């Protein structure tokens, strides 16, 4: 086994996903087979190889820090599931 059900539960917590028992069972089997497949990368010696994070080599892209027109509070709040004035309303954080 590349991954156990206990590890899958741990990963779900890290990913903030409240998975059902059925999903945990299915993902354990499926992730195990996918992780077994990606094992094949270990056949390659990558000692000293520089990792690629972007395909196009580029330096940092700088620009002047100038204010530009923004969409405004009303538009920014329009899709919020719950808000009050210019604040997003969420369930209680501290009991």
């Amino acid at each position, binding site marked *: 086994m590349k991954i156990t059900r206990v590890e899958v539960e741990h990963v779900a917590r890290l990913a*903030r996903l*409240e998975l059902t028992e059925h999903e945990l069972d299915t993902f354990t089997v*499926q*992730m195990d087979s996918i992780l077994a497949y990606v094992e094949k990368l270990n056949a390659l010696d990558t000692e000293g190889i*520089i990792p690629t994070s972007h395909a196009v080599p580029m330096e940092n892209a700088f620009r002047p820090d100038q204010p530009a027109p923004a969409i405004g509070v009303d538009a920014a709040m329009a*899709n919020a*599931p719950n808000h009050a004035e210019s604040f997003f309303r969420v369930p209680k954080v501290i009991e």
Partner: protein
Amino acid sequence: MEIFDLTIHELHQKLKAKELSSVEATSAMLERIDATDGRVNAYITVTPEQALIEAEAADRRIAAGEMTTLTGIPVGLKDIFITKGIRTTCGSKMLSHFVPPYDGTAVARLKEQGAVIVGKLNQDEFAMGSSTESSYFGATKNPWDLACTPGGSSGGSAAAIAAQSATATLGTDTGGSIRQPASHCSCVGLKPTYGRVSRYGVIAYASSLDQVGPLTRDVTDAAIMLGAVAGYDPLDSTSVNTPVPDYVAGLGAGVKGLKIGLPKQYFIEGLDPDVKRAMDEAIALYKSLGAEIKEVSLPHTEYAVATYYLIATAEASSNLARYDGVRFGHRSESAKGLSEMYARTRDEGFGAEVKRRIMLGTYALSSGYYDAYYLKAQKVRTLIRQDFLTAFEDVDVMLTPVAPTPPFRMGEKLEDPLQMYLSDIFTIPVNLAGTCAISVPAGFCAAGLPIGVQLIGKAFGEQSILSAAYAFERETEWHKKKAAL
């Protein structure tokens, strides 16, 4: 010839000659959507009122003599493109009520040219899939055979071309999501070089791989669409500030003396015989046109799928962290505290494939596994990219299959994610290398389903693959065949 049959350049000529108005063309397209989409399900949202307003504006612009090639042309957009005032779902329950407050850059550029947006097209949820079966809004069906998938993730964008329910469409391609559905639906699909088209206002899946591109009825239309959306955008700092050539003007360059590479690792045992036949015919045609065919080697090809599914899922797990039920999108109603609200919102809002990829990516980035999975994959990506650089020292373009098989049946690969992932084996390496590639119609299998071939170009070599594709198209009739719907 019906109005909905016309390519962009044909329709443009009629609009320009005032034989037809954009309102007439747009109305014809909206009727075509009505007549076909109940069976195909290419669209998530159709926008008739907005489209007719845009068509009237286009007609005024044409009357004033200020038209571009795209003015008045009815186009569809994959529902991954943020559209101001038009619901944008990305194929997910999570965004099923999301109405964006702004247009992304590619959309804004199409609108500036006067294109008419007729609707938002179906896709795999968050562009994660190869069959358009994972959409919250139901699967899209292949117009060539409604029992088959159109491919994915831009399946709606490809199916709308095959169903003739959009003159042209935009899609996105992270591991083959433009080229594979284009191949399965017999249309032209172009994935530009990473950085060629702005990603601003495109819902992110895997940011180092995602790229915007057109799906069209012919190569000329692909050149027109690319020219309209390509170019540097200060709002996407990964877009590259390189001049955009006149892609249409360069189409006739021909292939005499063009060095075309055949990567030997792509001609594997077990390649579908119909796909192999289409490839052999394409090779013979290019030879007859004076191209020089050479074998090349991409030795790390067999590692591409594994590399992709680590890098793409890792980036996805990070990108999709934003869907927390706070600022926009779905929120679970049943949760008591904040943490529970996050976790339930995400469980309710995401479908199985999206959860699976978030899980894989989270695992690959997690403490103790980062070096073994994510960092390892990034190093192998370097080797894959190096393969392409080396091969392109000897050849101008490469010619390969797009997908290892013709279109597959609905449900065939749903239970086995790994089999679904392996259907992108010939398209994924191009995204990892960051170069460009185009899928062009190249025949049909014994069952009458479409097969495409892929031309891969160097970074910013769109001009070369477009002119090579155009030379192929001029000598073949495949792109003229229409699905019987």
